[in-house]
């Protein structure tokens, strides 16, 4: 892209610069980092001394800038670097930030904003109210296009192997949108209820709230939405998509198979699942005990899959995978899991009464009679399955349950909470013990154990070592061995790895036979449910691409933004309310007798309390409510940022200023006392688009009747390293005085000042007018502010005009006339140190006396407050000066290079 001039910033100085250059016939590129042109002026109430409505006189300039035939405007874009082209001009690199909204399609209807589940402080209302993560910054934005603010991926989402959006459904629960929350999980997997109970919730491990009182109960919230949906008689039916005529076979109906089938069916594939067991659900239905995952929950989840049209053939074992092609299936997914028990390989393992945990749990889950009444049970193993087996045995009336684990307690693969719960249910844990052999004739009646000194060798391989001198005998009638599980793939005729898992590309999940894909534990070995779900989704994605003839692009699956930094999230606000930690919901019994769920359901109040703790780490929750709401189909979550290179003949820096952060003067109490506000906040309170539609004090909504202004907050003040006068604060305060006296005729206004600097045309008259209207001007600097019980504020000051004594005065609202700080961003646009700044970090003017607006770099000019604070007329004049010289620079270049 080639332009005569690049204007950085579109405040009043930037707009004036662009418009005048455009009028002269030069091609101008304006780059604005916010989503709208207009800068700070558009946010003001009225302007001094004319009391023109700021938006009324800004909007014509904003619209003119956008519509000017010679001006191109990039909003929500940032200039990343500017470097000389060695020929009088410059190269600029500009990054167009993704709005996640298709600008051409967006009509500015704000439906996305209304649907959005996340509220964050509204910086365009000086933080006094909130806005949505999907938002249109303010009513007069130009262009009127929505933006979705995404700081990155929330850690909970980033950490979910299934690709579920916990932040999204938590935010929807918070909004009371339980159905939408359920549907959001359905976008990933049909197993909402199962995951809500049996998932190990890696999301919670990374929840930023964990840095405060503890993570959100994310898993239980999922259970809450599943309970809410499955408990309804009028649940909405699953929508069936148009069939696309293609058929896919899925072998195995565990989490991976069900998820893949669901995803494929949603895309219109005709899917048939082959399941060897009598019931679909894999480990969910055959292994996880009912006190953790009741059968009806799994049935409900499976019903989602059948409702969309997936056919499930149970009791149907498939051995010859290749043969399925003859059945008319265009692709096959093998997701058969790991249902083969690993053996201990110790003497006596073949005795009667020694069972594998998988067989044992499966029998119980399928309702077969397993009577352990009065029997002593020994469970061997330290993993989740062993715990499940032990606790199941307890429920079946075993006289005692002992559990022997090679690993010592801290190293056991089972989760800590599971070990704790097992102990609470009366299971005796022998950690660090290995089975030497089982004793007994035909039936087992005990086991000989020895101390295990080390489970893994230095390479991390399973290679237990024992101290043979330390031994122990245990008597028992039943042994349940949970020594691991492996894939049962021998019959498939597919390539396998050493551990019998199926061999496939780990990213595309495609096997050597292109139409055969694999997913879940049968590829990865035993993992978590969520991992298997993620595998199922990935396989479905790849199968879909394969059947559409698309390249199996590993990068395209679940491409996400970087995860947000938790420190940044916590740093967004100074104070977080720390709440009471949530109670664990599991009601433990020392001697459980039935398979009722140990964990109770969440009440709506608990769910809302839990969800309300969310810190909205990524800002956008990815709840996708905007996607559904947008009538123009303009939301594009996969939108990418874009680098734009521009060649420009000259540069005008109109990067403006920053307001002094009022909390840097702690003695004035901003941030601590709610009724201490800044001048910008008061301007918003008075603006036509005011947040409360009235002038109220934020602490309690009272209409203030005695308002104080503290001038020179952050200006003329060496203690905050700013000896400069900020110029605009006197006048904006005097303006606000007049507006307040109009809006609140009964209110008293007192201004504590050092000097009133009313130095522009008509300004002093404007100041006198405010005095005439009754504003009380008190010469004296305020030394400190304290708060009374009712939220009023006591100011301590030197009453200079009346003898100079230290005096106190009470007010019900204090406005800090905050000053201005340089925006050092301008410097970052150039190579280190290239652009000269003045002593106070404003853009330096090399020759202010004769060439105001000229920087040390030829062809680079500065307009407006970037070179030192200016009021609006002075910004306009300064922009005019910059433009005149930029035009001169361009004309000179024209003469140099003959056309």
């Amino acid at each position, binding site marked *: 892209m080639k332009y005569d001039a690049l204007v950085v910033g579109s405040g009043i100085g930037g707009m004036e610069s662009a418009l005048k250059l455009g009028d002269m016939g030069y091609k101008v590129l304006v780059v604005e980092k916010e989503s709208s042109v207009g800068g700070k002026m558009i946010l003001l109430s009225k302007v001094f001394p004319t009391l*023109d409505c700021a938006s009324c006189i800004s909007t014509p300039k904003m619209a003119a800038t956008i519509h000017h035939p010679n001006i191109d405007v990039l909003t929500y874009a940032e200039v990343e670097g500017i470097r000389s082209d060695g020929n009088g001009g410059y190269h600029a690199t500009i990054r167009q930030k993704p709005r996640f909204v298709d600008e051409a399609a967006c009509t500015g209807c704000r439906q996305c904003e209304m649907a959005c589940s996340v509220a964050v402080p509204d910086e365009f209302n000086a933080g006094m109210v909130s806005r949505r993560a999907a938002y249109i910054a303010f009513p007069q934005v130009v262009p009127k296009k929505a933006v979705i603010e995404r700081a990155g991926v929330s850690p909970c989402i980033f950490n979910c192997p299934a690709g579920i959006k916990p932040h999204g459904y938590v935010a929807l629960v918070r909004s009371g949108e339980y159905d939408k929350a359920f549907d959001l999980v359905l976008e990933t997997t049909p197993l909402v209820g199962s995951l809500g109970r049996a998932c190990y919730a890696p999301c919670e491990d990374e929840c930023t709230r964990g840095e405060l009182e503890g993570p959100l109960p994310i898993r239980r919230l999922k259970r809450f939405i599943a309970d809410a949906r499955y408990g309804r008689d009028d649940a909405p039916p699953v929508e069936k998509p148009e069939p696309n005529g293609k058929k896919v076979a899925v072998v195995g109906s565990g989490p991976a198979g069900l998820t893949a089938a669901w995803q494929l069916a949603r895309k219109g594939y005709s899917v048939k699942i082959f399941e060897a067991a009598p019931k679909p659900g894999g480990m969910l239905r055959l292994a996880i005990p009912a006190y953790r995952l009741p059968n009806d929950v799994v049935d409900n989840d499976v019903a989602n899959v059948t409702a969309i049209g997936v056919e499930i053939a149970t009791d149907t074992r498939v051995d010859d995978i290749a043969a399925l092609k003859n059945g008319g299936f265009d692709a096959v997914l093998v997701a058969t899991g790991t249902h083969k028990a690993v053996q201990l390989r110790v003497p006596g393992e073949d005795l009667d009464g020694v069972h594998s945990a998988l067989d044992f749990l499966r029998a119980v889950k399928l309702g077969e009679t397993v009577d352990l009444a009065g029997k002593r049970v020994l469970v061997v193993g330290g993993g989740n399955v062993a715990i499940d087996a032990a606790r199941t045995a307890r429920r079946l009336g075993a006289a005692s349950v002992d559990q022997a684990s090679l690993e010592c307690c801290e190293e056991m693969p089972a989760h800590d909470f599971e070990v704790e719960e097992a102990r609470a249910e009366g299971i005796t844990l022998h950690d660090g013990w290995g089975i030497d052999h089982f004793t007994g004739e035909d039936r087992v009646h005990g086991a000989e154990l020895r101390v295990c000194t080390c489970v893994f060798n230095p390479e991390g391989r399973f290679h237990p070592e024992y101290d043979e001198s330390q031994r122990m005998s245990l008597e028992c009638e039943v042994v349940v061995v949970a020594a691991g599980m492996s894939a049962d793939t021998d019959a498939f005729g597919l390539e396998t790895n050493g551990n019998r898992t199926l061999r496939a590309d780990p990213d595309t999940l495609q096997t050597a036979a292109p139409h055969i894909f694999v997913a879940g534990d049968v590829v990865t070995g035993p993992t978590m449910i969520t991992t298997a779900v993620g595998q199922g989704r990935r396989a479905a994605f790849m199968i879909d691409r394969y059947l559409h003839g698309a390249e199996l692009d590993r990068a395209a699956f679940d491409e996400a933004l970087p995860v947000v930094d938790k420190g940044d999230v916590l740093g967004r606000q100074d104070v977080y309310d720390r709440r009471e930690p949530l109670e664990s919901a599991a009601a433990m019994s020392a001697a459980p007798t039935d398979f009722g769920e140990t964990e109770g359901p969440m009440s709506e109040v608990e769910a809302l309390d839990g969800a309300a703790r969310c810190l909205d780490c990524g800002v956008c929750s990815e709840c996708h409510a905007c996607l559904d709401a947008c009538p123009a189909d303009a939301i594009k979550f996969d939108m990418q940022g874009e680098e734009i290179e521009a060649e420009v003949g000259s540069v005008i820096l109109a990067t403006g200023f920053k307001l002094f952060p009022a909390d840097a003067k702690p003695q004035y109490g901003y941030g601590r006392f709610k009724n201490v506000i800044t001048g910008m906040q008061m301007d918003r309170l008075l603006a036509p688009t005011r947040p409360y539609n009235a002038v109220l004090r934020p602490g309690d909504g009272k209409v203030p009747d005695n308002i104080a202004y503290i001038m020179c907050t952050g200006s003329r003040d060496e203690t905050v390293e700013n000896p400069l006068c900020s*110029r605009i604060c006197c006048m904006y305060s005097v303006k606000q005085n007049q507006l307040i006296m109009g809006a609140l005729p009964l209110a008293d206004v007192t201004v504590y000042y050092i000097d009133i600097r009313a130095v*522009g045309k008509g300004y002093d008259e404007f100041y006198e007018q405010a005095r005439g209207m009754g504003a009380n001007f008190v010469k004296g600097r305020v030394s400190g502010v304290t708060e009374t019980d009712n939220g009023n504020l006591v100011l301590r000051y030197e009453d200079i005009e009346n003898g100079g004594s230290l005096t106190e005065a009470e007010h019900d609202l204090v406005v800090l006339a905050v000053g201005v700080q340089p925006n050092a961003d301008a410097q970052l646009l150039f190579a280190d140190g290239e652009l000269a700044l003045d002593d106070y970090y404003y853009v330096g003017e090399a020759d202010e006396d004769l060439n105001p607006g000229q920087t040390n770099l030829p062809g680079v000019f500065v307009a407006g407050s970037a070179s030192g604070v200016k009021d609006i007329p002075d910004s*306009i004049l300064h922009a005019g000066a910059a433009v005149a010289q930029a035009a001169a620079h361009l004309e000179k270049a024209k003469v140099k290079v003959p056309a």
Partner: protein
Amino acid sequence: MSGRRIGVYVCQCGGNIGDYVDVDKVVATIEHEPDVVVARSAMFTCSDATQQEIVQDAEEQKLDGLVVASCSPKLHTYTFRDVAKRAGINPFQYTQVNVREQCSWTHTDDHEGATEKATRLVRAGINRTRLTEPLEPIVVETTPKSLVVGGGIAGLRAALGLAEIGLSVFLVEKEPRLGGWVASFGAMYPHGRNGAELVAKLEEAVRANPAITVFTNAEVMSKSGSFGNYQVTIAVHGERLETITVDVGSIVVATGFETYEPAAGEFGYGIDGVVTLPQFKKMVDGSAGPLTYNGRPVKTIAYVYCVGSRQSKDVEGGHTYCSRYCCTAAVHAALEVAAKADLSVRQYHLYRDMRTYGKYELLWNESREKGSLYLRVPDDEPPAVEKIASGGLKVTTRDLLTGGEEVAIPADLVVLVTGMVPRENDELVSVLKLPIGIDGFFNEIHPKLRPVETIVDGVYICGACQSPKNSAESVTSGLAAVTQSGAILKRGFAELDPMVAMVDTDACTWCDKCLEACPYAAIEQVDEDGKAVASVIRTACKGCGGCVPVCPTDAVDLQGYTDAQVKAMIDGLLEVTCS
């Protein structure tokens, strides 16, 4: 029914209108008016979104007329003409109805009445729009030349700037020399650069630039023509008077200021040793070492601030404005004094508010470090300056910074920190029709956003003739005037409003009443088929309508505001709303 298709948009303007006028009710009432096919309310009609909505409505509903009821036409006429253009509606078939300044804001106590009035105003606007004809702007080629009036630092820099962007320049200076006030200054704040040297540098560049013609001892005698093409006659006084007429597209006025001359006795003015700021500045600039006065070293200086500025409204002919530059100028002069002598010179500053704004605060801080002492004088108790028996001066005041203590300062020199006052320029004002503000300085069209433009198209004001400014600020505004000139002249053509008078030559009897009424010399007598009739110079006519009512034969009408339209508007205002 006229078959017109009119869209009406009534603005809430946030709460500016909507808080007082029931906008929805207005819309509900007028949407049934004949020819109205779209009627809507909008939160901000000027916002980009509503503009787009208008464009969309126009396309879908095939609108051929537009009524926007919002604020003053001064604000948004061009905004909505542009919208109309984008919407495919002739921009002159749009009517702006003012329901804010002339309705909601004036009737904040009567919501019902305001709503009723707004309805009538909108109806009048619809009636006018119904009778509009499509008009095209008058396109004139512009002259790529500028005239700069005044050769002070602002005028010099403007002349150079105009030449640098490719325009030819005529620079007219009344005095025999270029340079204005700044040519007489030594070191100036804030960078300590020498005024005379700065001006010399500029003058050299101006004189060397072939695109600039300089006339000294010269004055502007007359101006004719119209926007983009003015003919200006310049009188050059020399051995014999010469008049030269130049064609220019724009005129930049940079005629500067006068310094306030205190009345005799005002703060002791007239007493030996009481001097004004410019006099003092000259003394300081002219002394190489420690300051002397009447041959005696100056050991104590008292500065009295705000002399001739910030005067009470009750002072006859007083200057109520702040002169902006003088606080910093006095502080800077005190620093110069300190720099030229040792720090033993005692300097007392009797001020009201110290207005060293922005970065100039640093100078004030420095002056205090260099020994200047500042006393805050009560606004209503000006200091008294008198001569004492010993021959010196005494300044008496109360210092609010020390508890209101009475202070008597014996001084060798009293500096009256005098401000800027507008320069008498009656002839130029009458030739260029320059508007003058209540403070006596030239008036810009809008003090906030259009600070160098005047209501006379193509005539710009810069430097201290617009309001008090220091040297660098004057240069800045001079360059801003360059930019404004460039914005209209670099294109090569300008578009003028076609809403001008037209003459029905059949009815005209050439009585010359219209000629007399025209303030813009836009009427001329022409011969049409042997008959003397009036003719309108369309590029000169401003569409003020002054000629219309004086015509005894109703031969003159104003395009865009024809008699028929005005009558229809009156009917609209009088029509009773039945609701």
